[in-house]
Each structure stands twice: as C-alpha cells, then as structure tokens.
C-alpha cells in the first residue's frame, strides 16, 4: 500500500472513533461563551472608566504642570550683541494700570522694577497681585546691539520667543518700543509705559 493511501485510511478510521457529544457540548460552549463575553465587556468597561478617571483627575494637573514648567527647554540666550551694557545699566521702575487690557487681564497692575546689570543680567521684581508674585520670572538676560535690546524675559513662562525692542534713554526715562515681539505679557511689562530711573 502506498503511504498516501495508508494515511488517508488510517486517519479516517482513527477519526471515526472520536465522536463528539453535541448534546452536552453545545450548551457548555454557549454558557462559557456568554460568560467570557460578559467578563470581556466588564473588563473593557473597567479599562475605559479607569482611563476616563485618569484623564479627568490627572489631565488638568498634567496640562497645568506642562504649561508652567516645560522642563528640558532651556531659556535661550538673546543673540550676542555688544558687551558694553553701561549705557543702559541701572534700575528702573514703571507703574502699570488696568487701562491696558493685557495688564488688566493678567492682573499685572502695580509697580514693576527692573534692574539691568552691567553684565547683561536682568532682574525683575513683580508687583503683588500678578500670578507670578514672589517668583523669579523665567528668563533673565538681555543684550544690546546699537539701539536694539533683545531679551528672553518670561521665556518658558509666558513667552516662547526672544523679544526685540528699540531702547532710548532720555534723561531719566527709558523707553522700549517693540520691534519684534509676539509675547503680549512681556510687551505689556516692558513697553506699556516709559521706565523711570530709580535712585
């Protein structure tokens, strides 16, 4: 006999001995299938509810922390200009009022003081009421190039770009006029009014 015939006949004979009991097996399969389906539905519902709960509870916190911290993005230094900051170095103050819409919207009204160091360092004191009161604002440098002042003030905080202003110091008044600025908060602080030399 050929192996092919032997296999076909042998399998047919052997398989005929394995008769399935449909009367018992079908109800079992249906019952197990229904139970399995219920478990899967419950499991999926649990997963969905868990994900929803995580999004509802942790989502706003996560978004808030990303907005305020944005870790890993260093403050860029304003592009290099002159190293002689003596022409502008000093302490200046300005009082912002709610007449400016951005000032009012961000509760920025109050006296702001800015200290421009002879080394290009910038320190800003923030008035009470502003949401960042008591905190050191992100970005603390400026550079000068002829009549232009470039600064990274508030970078990663409210701003995502370098601001470029034309500066003009006449007597005791420092005026900053925006040349390239897409950050409303920084512009409101620096350019709403002329700054007055202090002390």
């Amino acid at each position, binding site marked *: 006999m050929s*192996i092919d015939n032997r296999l076909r006949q042998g399998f047919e004979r*052997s398989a005929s001995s394995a008769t*399935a009991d*449909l009367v018992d097996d079908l109800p*079992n399969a249906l019952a197990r*299938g229904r139970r*399995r389906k219920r478990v899967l539905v419950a499991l999926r519902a649990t997963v969905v509810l868990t994900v929803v709960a995580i999004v509802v509870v942790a989502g706003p916190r996560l978004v808030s922390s990303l907005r305020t911290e944005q870790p890993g993005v260093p403050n860029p230094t304003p592009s290099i200009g002159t190293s002689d900051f003596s022409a502008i170095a000093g302490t200046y103050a300005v009082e912002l009022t709610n007449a400016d819409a951005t000032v009012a919207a961000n509760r920025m009204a109050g006296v702001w003081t800015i200290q421009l160091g002879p080394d290009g360092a910038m320190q800003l004191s923030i008035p009470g009421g502003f949401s960042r009161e008591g905190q050191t604002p992100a970005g603390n440098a400026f550079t000068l190039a002829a009549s232009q002042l470039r600064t990274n003030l508030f970078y990663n905080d409210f701003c995502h770009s370098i601001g470029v202003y034309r500066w003009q110091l006449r007597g005791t008044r420092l005026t900053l006029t925006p040349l390239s600025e897409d950050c409303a908060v920084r512009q409101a602080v620096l350019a709403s009014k002329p700054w007055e030399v202090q002390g």
Partner: protein
Amino acid sequence: MVRTQLGERMNDAEAEYSWFYRGEYPHVVRTVFLILHDRQRAEDITQDAFVQLYGHWNKVSRYERPDAWVRRVAIRMAIRHIKRERMRSILERESSSPSIPAAVDVDLLGAMQQLPVTQQVAVVLFYFEDRPIAEIGHILGTSEGAVKMSLSRARHRLAELLGEEVIEDVHRQ
C-alpha cells in the same frame, strides 16, 4: 428570539452560531484528535476554540470561511498544547495515559508522534481534511513552499516507520 431543540432561548446570532457549531464541531474534534491523539483533550481544546469563536461570532460569521477561522484557532491551541507537553519531563509524560479509543490505527498515530508538530499538523490537514497547500500554510503561518517541504519529509519518514512505499511526490494544490 428562538427556542432550540435543546430547549434554550437564544437570539438570532446564537441560533446561527449553534447551527454552525453542530456542523463543524465534530469535524474539528476529529482533526484535533488526530494531532493530539487524546480524545478528551481534543474535545477540550475544540470547545475552547468554539468559545473564542462565540466572542467573535458577529465578525467571523461574516467571513467567507468561518470554519477556517475556528479550525485555525483550534489547531494553534493544539500545537501550543503539544509544545507544552514536550517541555514536561519524560517521567510525567509516561505516567499520563491519553484516552486512545480501540478503533484507532495505533501504529499510524505512534509514527505520527515521531514527527515534529508542524509536520503532524500538515499531514492531518492534507490527508484527513483534504485542505489545499495554501490553506495549510495560512493555518500554520508559513509559506506554501515550507508546507510542501514538511509534507514531503513527513511522508518519507512515515513510510519508513510504517514500512509503506512512497509512490509520488506531493504537489497537489
């Protein structure tokens, strides 16, 4: 809702599933039995495959070949079972006594056990189920060439073990 011969109330999908079950279940049990050589285990695995089918019935019932789906699931379960069993110690295997009915071709099943599991499955699907090479490849997750190779090697090995002759090569599609 319909009432079945078994006295159960079931919806249309379940009625359709039951109809399919009655037609296919015995065939799948026999195929799996020829792979496992254990009737009880073959029934258990086929049941598990049909339970899985129940969960996917809405989708699988729209397939062109729902029988191929459940057969593939059952065979893959059987292959996993054999591989698990082979991992166990020889002592444990010898102590277990699968329920082999008296009518079976014991020599053939014994020779089959000498083959790698993929060759066993290919031989059963080809000679018992009369499945085309391409479908066997799909079930095993391998190419048609690999299936032909498996069948050729299995035939020669089985012929040697059973003292039968190899007359022609396998090239049926």
